[in-house]
């Protein structure tokens, strides 16, 4: 849910404040002697030191950002109408992500996203913010706003497009405010843990939170319209050999409040989601696959709406060049009034090439063939994604 839309002026102030905080930036792999002079010296390098008071008066903070710019050209063939084209440039999300070390087993993370819309206004959205208490590898718990424990994509790539292989998230794991069908954000608490047995690992993760609001865009951040909490559970088994294989099931339950503003949505919905995922990564190949089956049952009328979706993406790693391809499908039930008319079924085949210019900037070239009801489209997309 959007926390509010600010005018540009307010955004400039907020951005300036965040950039000021960048003086606290800690590099990804911190050199212990970074504080030493750049001038050559005969003195031996001093071991790890610290700025006086830095860890005494305030916790250590790491700030990073992600951003992207995308150029898109789409050619549509509309049944019975003819062909048309769309081409445009789009600013992506400016994602400021902060991690703070409060104590050996307590940490804080926030992810604040600035996103411009078609009206040239900028929205600020608090995508993730939580405090995490870690007892051991076997148990951690955190409170705040999280990415829900669905599969691998939602908790691996988050909002920084640099880290994900493709230009966009697969349709079934899109964010709620980008037309997504899953409750990918959860406000409440999350917990999890893992154990290892030689080359095997077993992991659990769960979310208990407010659940969804009356529409699929709503993430109930400050209150909950009903007392029933949404519950998500994911189990993962992993195996290490030449590469790393992860797979497992997940389930999600929620009660979705009525939406009196939409005729036919006077009843509460029971939401059940089951899914499974399989991910494989080695130094040459990556396979990402997830399947979800979403069922909504209207507790007033008894009507049921089923919306399955899945994706399968393969990436080959040639160092800086990473060709990829995949299939992405969402069969959303268009009679399900919870989703609204803007969410439509999609079948998408895609091929692309990711070119890592360096560790912090990647160019992605992608071709897509989309089939939506009544429309066949071919799309060419070029994106530069980077972190700072």
């Amino acid at each position, binding site marked *: 849910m959007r926390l509010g839309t600010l005018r540009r002026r307010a955004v400039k102030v907020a951005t300036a404040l965040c950039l000021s905080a960048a003086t606290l930036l*800690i*590099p*990804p*792999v*911190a*050199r*212990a*002697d970074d504080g030493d002079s750049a001038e050559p010296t005969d003195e*031996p*390098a001093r*071991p*790890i030191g610290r700025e006086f008071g830095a860890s005494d008066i305030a916790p*250590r903070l*790491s700030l*990073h950002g992600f951003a992207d710019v995308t150029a898109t050209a789409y050619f549509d063939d509309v049944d019975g109408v003819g062909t048309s084209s769309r081409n445009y440039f789009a600013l992506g999300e400016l994602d400021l*992500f902060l*991690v*703070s*070390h409060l104590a*050996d*087993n307590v*940490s*804080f*993370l926030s992810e604040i996203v600035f996103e411009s819309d078609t009206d040239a206004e900028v929205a600020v959205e608090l995508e993730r913010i*939580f405090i*995490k208490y*870690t*007892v*051991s*590898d076997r148990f951690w718990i*955190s409170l705040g706003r999280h990415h829900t424990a669905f599969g691998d994509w939602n*908790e*691996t790539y*988050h909002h*920084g497009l640099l*880290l994900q292989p493709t230009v966009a998230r697969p349709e079934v794991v899109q964010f709620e405010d980008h037309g997504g069908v899953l409750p990918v954000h959860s406000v409440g608490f999350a917990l999890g843990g*893992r154990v*290892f047995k*030689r*080359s095997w*690992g077993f992991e659990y993760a769960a979310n208990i939170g407010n659940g969804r609001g009356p529409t699929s865009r709503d993430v109930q951040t400050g209150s909950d319209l009903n007392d029933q909490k949404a519950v998500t559970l994911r189990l993962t088994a992993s195996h*290490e050999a030449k590469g790393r294989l992860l797979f497992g099931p997940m389930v999600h339950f929620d009660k979705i409040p009525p939406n009196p503003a939409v005729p036919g949505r006077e009843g509460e919905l029971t939401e059940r989601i089951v899914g499974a995922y399989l991910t494989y990564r080695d*130094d040459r190949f990556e396979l990402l696959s997830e399947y979800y089956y979403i069922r909504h049952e209207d507790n007033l009328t008894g009507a049921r709406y089923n919306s399955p979706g899945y994706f399968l993406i393969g990436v080959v790693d040639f160092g800086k060049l990473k060709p990829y391809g995949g299939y992405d499908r969402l069969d959303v039930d268009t009679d399900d009034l919870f989703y609204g008319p803007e969410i439509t079924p999609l079948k998408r085949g895609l091929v692309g090439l990711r070119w*890592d210019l*360096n*560790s912090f900037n990647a160019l992605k070239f992608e071709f897509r063939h989309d089939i939506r009801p009544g429309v066949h489209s071919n799309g060419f997309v070029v994106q530069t994604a980077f*972190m700072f």
Partner: protein
Amino acid sequence: MTVVTTTWAEAPAVVEEYAVVVSPDVDVKSMDLERVRRLFLLRERYWRPGRSVKLIFSEDSVEPRSFLLERIYRMNYSGLRRLIVEKLYQEEIDLAPKVVASDEVAVAFVASGRGLIALVRTTATTGAGAKVVAIDGVLPGMPGYALRR
């Protein structure tokens, strides 16, 4: 420790040997190679409840084609940087590992700190106070030791 092996049919081959060293408070005497990789890849983060694993890198260990990058991480330095960023972003860690000037400094830090672990040349461990961990029950210098090339 540098071991020189000779057979009648071959020229002498210089073998680089590496040791996993941990702080004195870490109650580990031996670990398998899978666990070494899990610890350095930041998948296993705690020695025991309340005591987190802290990695120390030496400058040598993150040089191109270093043993640590080639055999343990199986990636280059850029890949390691990306891994650290991803782990921060995924809230798997909240601090990046430290890098110190040399293997000897790394050993000194590990010896004087708590919960620390480093991979260093075996020669750097001589006379230092850090604990050398056996790999699959085999200590450096013994036949069958795994961390050699």
